[in-house]
């Protein structure tokens, strides 16, 4: 008799524990299942973004760097986008990016007779097969359905693996939040139908932002008809930033 009583009591307490646990668990999943993209009137399946940088047009004014800084509150000394200057001859090369090109570029003495020189704007390539997401141990880095690589600042623990993994140097650990930060293609703008700030202010149309799911899109047209290159294709990261007039010296 004693045995029976104790098992019944145990059974009841187990049932209550298990039941409440199941309720909590199920409520969690059912809550999540019915959600839609909360950005109003925005369907992320209807877009796939791509970016084109025509290095033959860049004048190195740094407007994009300043616009990015203002738009995204990028901390001083860190860059979500920056501009590099390449001054080259057959034997020698010189690359500089004073303060990321924020204040434009001063005249320079290369110390050799350059035969060609040009500017290359750089930023996150929003790769399809990106190493930064693969190395994230907490699921803070991810790629959206519309093709943007983002960092969840609430999940990020600031380990810096992604900063190390990015072959393009596009990420940094913010000195303010101590989490990874990067170019978001101005996700707060593009989800409202606007262009990223860098594209908005570019005076020479060096930078173009487009949507591959729109038939009349200028970026899509360039990718369909022009000979575009990506940076460091041997890494097979499938960048979604495409370059026109990219030199072999640019990494």
């Amino acid at each position, binding site marked *: 008799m004693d045995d029976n009583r104790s098992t019944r009591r145990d059974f009841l307490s187990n049932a209550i524990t*298990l039941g409440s646990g199941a309720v909590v668990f199920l409520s969690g999943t059912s809550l999540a299942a019915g*959600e839609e993209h909360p950005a109003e009137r925005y369907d992320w399946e209807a877009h796939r973004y791509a970016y084109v940088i025509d290095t033959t047009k860049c004048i*190195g004014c740094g407007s994009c760097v300043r616009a990015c800084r203002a738009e995204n509150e990028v901390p001083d000394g860190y860059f979500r986008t920056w501009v590099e200057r390449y001054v080259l001859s057959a034997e020698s090369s010189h690359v500089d990016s004073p303060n990321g090109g924020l204040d*434009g570029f001063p005249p320079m003495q290369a110390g050799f007779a350059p035969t060609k*020189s040009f500017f290359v704007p750089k930023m996150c390539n929003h790769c399809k097969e990106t190493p930064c997401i693969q190395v994230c141990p907490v699921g803070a880095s*991810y790629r959206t359905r519309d093709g943007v690589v983002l960092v969840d600042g609430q999940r990020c623990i600031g380990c810096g693996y992604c900063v190390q993994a990015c072959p393009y140097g596009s990420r940094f650990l913010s000195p303010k939040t101590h989490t990874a930060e990067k170019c978001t293609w101005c996700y707060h703008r593009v989800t409202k139908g606007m262009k990223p700030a860098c594209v908005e202010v570019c005076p020479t149309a060096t930078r173009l932002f487009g949507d591959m799911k729109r038939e009349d899109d200028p970026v899509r047209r360039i990718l369909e008809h022009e000979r575009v290159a990506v940076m460091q294709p041997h890494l097979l990261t499938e960048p979604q930033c495409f370059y026109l007039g990219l030199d072999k010296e640019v990494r």
Partner: protein
Amino acid sequence: MEHARHVFRVLFVLLVAVVGIVLVRSFLVPASYGLYGPYRFDNVAEQAAIRPPLHGGAVACGECHEDRSKAVAAGVHRSVSCEVCHAPLGRHVKGGDVVAPMAVDRSFTLCARCHRKIDGRPTAFPQVVLEQHVQGGLEGRVCLECHDPHSPKL
């Protein structure tokens, strides 16, 4: 009967452990995690609403300054956004109200950023060799003395 109790105790401990794990997991894993992949889906909406856009674009400027934007559109600076030389629209207007006067940069460096002759710029782009530009040199002078920034052709 004694053996059955042992088995039951083990099962009971296992059950408690499983329930405990499920409980703790349900508290630790964010609700929207894993909906579309190994990340918190709610962050997508958070990123989309992280801050109001600061740059408005030339069209937004033209809503109030129609005459100015028309004049710029007719000149060689038509492709230069107002916000390049002035400041982002969000510093000037918030929610339709003017919150601060628009910055006007009349400095020499503003023009020099684009038009000073340096290595790197495309050769077809209009550039100025400062030393040869005007008699007496440019020291202490600003480009706007002679040029209209909105349509700078002389």
